[in-house]
């Protein structure tokens, strides 16, 4: 499966090490459509290929949007991309957030750090179909205010009357006037009815584990909680073997999983 060419339309710096690329397909082979939660393999010649979640609005069909943290050999090269540069893309791959399946329920989106990126498409979809949901809650935690993604959008979302948006940081350096405390402290404050709640959770695994515990304290059942799991990935098609978590291939069985179906594997050491 060959990657298709995309041209960088815009680079937006989110935080000191994170940036969002808006990409335009060079020809009709490059697909921009995806379902929230899916990922693409992004490729730069000579650097390599990395799996990155799509972070844009699934309803707009013009650009492909990816938010990338510059932490590895490949993403550090991607950090140097400018408008007009080329990038190659394979995908989209993987399972999706149960956004449509959750219609009629309360929907609680809980993101930690970079975890907001794969959840943003789900939130966009919920907002555009707002009337199909009961209560809508977005809880977001980051280390510092400077680590928050999509700050302008967050502000806009916080102004919406029919959505509860809570943001907290661990360490409030630099004129932060919002909540302080880890993401789990926001869960008791969420205005949702646990009996009819579907929760979508994304962040580092440790954050997701404790978030699920807190959701359970509020009696949200594990089969209504969905998580996105990350592992080393080379092919995205189940061939390279890298992304195995027990019997699970994260690339083709995931990355989005119903929590009760993966919890036994997430709890094991060095697996």
């Amino acid at each position, binding site marked *: *499966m060959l*990657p298709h060419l995309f041209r960088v339309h815009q680079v937006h710096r989110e935080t000191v090490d994170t940036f969002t690329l808006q990409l335009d397909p060079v020809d009709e082979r490059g697909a921009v459509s995806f379902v929230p939660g899916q990922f693409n393999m992004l490729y730069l*010649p000579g650097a390599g290929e990395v799996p990155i979640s799509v972070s844009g609005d699934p309803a707009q069909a013009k650009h492909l949007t990816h938010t990338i943290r510059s*932490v590895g050999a490949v993403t550090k090269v991607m950090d140097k991309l400018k408008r007009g540069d080329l990038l190659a893309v394979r995908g989209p791959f993987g399972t999706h957030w149960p956004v449509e399946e959750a219609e009629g329920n309360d929907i609680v989106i809980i993101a930690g750090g970079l975890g907001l990126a794969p959840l943003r498409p789900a939130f966009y979809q919920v907002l555009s179909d707002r009337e199909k949901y009961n209560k809508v809650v977005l809880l977001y935690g980051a280390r510092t205010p400077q680590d928050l993604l999509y700050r302008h959008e967050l502000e806009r979302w916080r102004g919406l009357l029919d959505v509860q948006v809570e943001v907290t940081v661990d360490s409030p350096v630099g004129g932060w006037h919002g909540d302080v405390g880890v993401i789990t402290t926001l869960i008791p404050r969420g205005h949702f009815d646990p009996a009819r709640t579907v929760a979508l959770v994304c962040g580092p695994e440790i954050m997701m584990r404790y978030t699920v515990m807190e959701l359970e304290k509020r009696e949200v059942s594990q089969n209504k909680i969905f998580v996105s799991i990350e*592992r080393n990935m080379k092919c995205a098609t189940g061939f390279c073997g890298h992304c195995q978590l027990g*019997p699970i291939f994260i690339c083709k069985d995931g990355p989005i999983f119903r929590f009760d179906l993966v919890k036994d594997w997430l709890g094991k050491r*060095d*697996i």
Partner: protein
Amino acid sequence: MVNLLLENGDLVVIEQSDFQQLLDVLAERTYQVVGPTIRDSAIIYDEMTSYTKLPIGWTDVQGKGTYRLKRREDDALFGYTVGPHSWKKYLHPPVSYLWRTNTTADGFQVTTAIEEPPKLAFIGVRACELQAIAAQDQVFLQGRFVDADYKARRENIFVVAVNCVQAGGTCFCASLKTGPKATSGFDLALTEVLTGTNHYFLVEIGSSAGADVMQAVTHQPASPAQIEAAEALVEATTQQMGRTLEPLDLKELLYNSYEHPQWDELGERCLGCGSCTMVCPTCFCTTTHDTIDVTGETTAHSKKWDSCFTMTFSYIHGGNVRTPLRSRYRQWLMHKFATWLDQFGRSGCVGCGRCITWCPAYIDITEEIRAIQESTNKQEEKIGGKL
């Protein structure tokens, strides 16, 4: 020669003296013949046009961490078992290029690097290896995604299987029911019979392509006595096999043994070299590499066999998931005997014994699994005693 058309399932006999014809007929049909031959004191797989390149009159002596070639007292063509190579080197090559890029005026372009695969005839594929090919078929062909390169290679082969008439020193296929007799997945399956002055091959036709090839090779219908002699040899192989591995309830047992002390013990002994994964005929993991030519104009994206024993195999930003060796050994063994069953509905082990022979630390998976099985049985007894 009786000129009846051969069919699937037919049994015929070819004399050793006519064996070269088989290779010639395959060559006529534009197959490149590959089979076992001796190199660097081991039996490996390589191209051949003459059957004399086979390790005629040689056998291998295998044990934990040992492999030696030894002269036989006869001139058997297939009087040995499996060596360090497996057929995956042809179907799932150690290195293959996926795509290349070259610089253009406004960026770069991507072109496929996948080449037309060679048309290969495999000579001397053992029952366990047929099972291994079937296992890799599931990985690359029977899931949601199909590996086009593997598919093209796989569709371009002719398989001459050989039933084992002697057990190798580390084999345990009989207990896994993956050998020593080839039951499917071949075009032709041979059983070599060598008694006194008789030296012939009982040939089972496994496909129409096999029938077509055999039609062109001098052969006779097999007599009941010849069939019986061949069957007896294969049966004797089963009896000879020294190693066993009990697969019953193994998956459940292992799933309940993630924190078994045996893993700590293995973590102490295992060197993390990954030899077992390289010689394993079912191991399929790969990593990718990007290379740039010296001008910086073209790059190549390749995949290369990888091993779950390497530290970086499980690397995600920030670190490796499986840092202790115990966890890497556990991943490998769990995959073969537990998670593989959930992924593909079969075991990831075919009982070929290569990982035992080629382990420099003398680790024998059959012993390790038995240790876990026995300790668990003992625990159950203890609990039973208390109640």
